[in-house]
């Protein structure tokens, strides 16, 4: 039996061309998690490609893996319009699509996404800090939460000047010497990651390297493609 779902809040994570003039869209919703649906005729509709990073209300029907969108309206303006920000937004979307299980409802993930894209548009919190917050919270909400304030024994407090090796399964283990691996880090970095929004400039490099390694652990062998764009933009040598 075909199911009808009416006017759910949603964000579009990705849209790809489908047949002549339609698209297949991946939508993040609080009540139904990630869903994939056909958006018929959308490539010929004015503005239909502008649904990324915009709060939406959508209705859909159908059953099985691929639904049909029956209604899409924006609930407000796009959260940001700078193309540079869209690259960052694509990274968030890719993380959601890669780390979130399909069709599993999560108000928490939806709220997290909404608050981070809104803050990206607000331009008050450094982008790097928002990304770290998003990564930490998303891992937490998908069952891969990090242990940042205690050692793996869940008792010993993290010391700022000690060196730790972060064991993916159990947490930080104090070690004698620093090293180049992604999971060897200073206590200060772990402490900075406890409140990513307040992170100071000097902690950002180490925090980013650690979170990048951590996310890779949960992605498997397929790398994140949106990182390549960010890298290409930086790699282009100045003058």
């Amino acid at each position, binding site marked *: 039996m075909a199911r009808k779902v009416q006017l759910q809040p949603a964000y579009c*994570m*990705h849209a*790809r061309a489908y*047949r*002549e*003039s339609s698209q297949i869209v991946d939508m993040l919703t609080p009540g139904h998690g990630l869903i994939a649906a056909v958006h018929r005729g959308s*490539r*010929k*509709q*004015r*503005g*239909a*490609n*502008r649904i*990324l*990073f915009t709060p939406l209300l959508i209705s859909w029907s159908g059953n099985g893996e691929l639904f049909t969108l029956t209604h899409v309206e924006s609930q407000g303006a796009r959260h940001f319009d700078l*193309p*540079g920000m*869209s*690259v960052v937004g*694509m*990274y968030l*979307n*890719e993380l959601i*699509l890669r780390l979130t299980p399909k069709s599993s409802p999560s108000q928490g993930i939806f709220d997290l996404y909404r608050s981070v894209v809104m803050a990206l548009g607000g331009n008050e919190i450094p982008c790097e800090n928002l990304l770290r917050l998003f990564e930490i919270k998303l891992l937490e909400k998908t069952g891969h939460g990090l242990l940042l304030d205690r050692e793996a024994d869940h008792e010993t407090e993290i010391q700022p000047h000690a060196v730790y090796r972060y064991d993916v399964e159990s947490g930080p283990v104090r070690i004698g010497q620093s090293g180049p691996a992604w999971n060897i880090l200073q206590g200060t970095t772990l402490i900075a990651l406890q409140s990513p929004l307040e992170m100071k400039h000097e902690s950002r490099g180490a925090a980013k390297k650690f979170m990048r390694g951590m996310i890779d652990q949960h992605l498997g062998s397929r790398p*994140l*493609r*949106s*990182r*390549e*764009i960010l890298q*290409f*933009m930086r790699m*282009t*040598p*100045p*003058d």
Partner: protein
Amino acid sequence: MSVNDLGDGELATSSLLNQLIESLQCLPGVGPKSAQRMAFHLLQRNRGGAKSLSDVLNRAVDEIGHCKNCRIFTEQESCPICQDASRIRTTICVVENPADVFMLEKSTDYKGLYFVLMGSLSPLDGIGPQELGLPILEKRLAEEAVEELILATNSTVEGEVTAHVLSEMAGRQGIKTTRLAQGVPVGGELEFVDQNTIAQAFAGRKTY
């Protein structure tokens, strides 16, 4: 979704005919019914046309590659536009699709060169800077006397992001970038815009 639509009506008289009908459905907008109509038309009324279609299709697929400079479809190493000595070599217009070049050639008086990305940056579809040939374009900008890069990518999020990355790339080499501005509907793809609108948008491009 495609063949099953034929359902019980599937033709048992010739498996080759069925194969033909199925193959025709690789064309955009062609479903089982119109594929069947096309197959009957070719076999019943126009075998000569069918023969030359199949010959030229075969050759096209084998021989047509990409121009080494601009990536447009051509069976030569370098395409006629790139080889045309009368074209202005200080301007490169970047488009997403070969169809966009045809459209711009038809509807504008543009006399510069092109670069065809064959898509737009879309990490979730596995399309990154390498796939779009950005390193090739970057090399051209460094080696040729390019003064203006026209960013004629679609006005979709991916098209905008691509334009942004291109403008950063050009900016680092001190090259001016312009972007099609008026006329192209927000969220629109060039392919679906009429010729007049394209001409207007092209004339009204501005510094990006």
